[in-house]
């Protein structure tokens, strides 16, 4: 681990990119090699998908609740409000993903309009 970290600091940002590109390709390439040979119902797959969903869940909550940059200008209560409205639209009204995204963009953009012209 330490050796990898040292290597990365020496060659900087681009070497980390190469590393994560390889890490991403690894699973795609492995899929090609294993296709037709393994069952996806095994315990390893269940564990891997749980870990993936937990990670993406953590990323999503973080980006919405504790964002860096411009999204910080929208109060957290309003961000959560927009998310709840969009989720309700998807679940209760059987909305499509693209229409849900448009709805959310309009609602969050409306706060930007309020910031620009009314405040």
């Amino acid at each position: 681990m330490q050796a990898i970290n040292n290597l990365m600091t020496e060659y900087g940002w681009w070497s980390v990119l190469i590393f994560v590109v390889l890490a991403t390709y690894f699973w795609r390439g492995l899929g090609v090699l294993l296709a037709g040979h393994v069952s996806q119902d095994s315990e390893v797959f269940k564990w891997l998908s749980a870990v993936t969903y937990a990670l993406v869940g953590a990323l999503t909550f973080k980006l919405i609740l504790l964002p860096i940059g411009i999204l910080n200008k929208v109060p957290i209560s309003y961000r959560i409000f927009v998310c709840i409205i969009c989720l309700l639209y998807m679940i209760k009204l059987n909305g499509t993903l693209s229409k849900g995204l448009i709805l959310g963009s309009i609602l969050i953009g409306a706060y930007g309009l309020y910031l620009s012209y009314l405040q």
Partner: protein
Amino acid sequence: MGAERIAYYNLKMDQIIQELNSVDTFSKAMKLGVKAGLYGPGPVLLAGMIGFGAMGHGIGLSILQTSAISFLMYALPGQIVFIEMMSMGAASSVVAIAVALTSTRFLTMVLTLFPQIPKQKNEPSRLLSVHLVAMSAWAFCMRDFPKMKPEVRYGYFLGIGLICWLMAVPGTIFGYIVSEYVPIWIAIPLVFVNPLFFLLSFVDVKVPLNRLAIIVGGIAGAVFYNIYPENALLISGLGFGSLAYAFDYFKRKMNH
């Protein structure tokens, strides 16, 4: 006008679905795939890439760095994990592990998709074309493959995959440049589109274990970012994802 557009869009998609079973050559299938890509997953993917470009700009990366990520990784959650963790100052090895873990879904995606395509002589290398496997092409191929002749499926996959991949870099560059000049009420939705996309796609997750993992991981993520910002993603994903798995495993064992 808006309603007309949507009606036209639905009509196009219906036409594509009707053409699926009559397609008989590789090149026709590929052309149909390109069309399906443009009308199906294309717009959402493009919006995601534009949003990613805006995020890269906001975090302070160069335009070259931001578009290289989209071109080479072509996996939005992993891309965002990468730039988020780098900006938090996480150790390179921790970043690599977290990105590798976000990308595990590709293994299951390839394992479900590629066995449906029969091997043919002189086909484009699968080890290369597998880079095009992403949520966009995968979901549409899984839906449409059963309606198609097996020997033309590879062309259809390449069509959707290529057109979506080719949109990634222009989208990223556009988002990067535009976010500098547009007013705040456009810039805010640009950076909000990706987290919202992830959140809304969770609605389609049906397996109870995965639902539990999202909620537990999400809460852990929000809590641990305040305590260990640089390792929060890894702790929440690997730690709490495994915890959710263990809970599910023992629950299943108890019931048997």
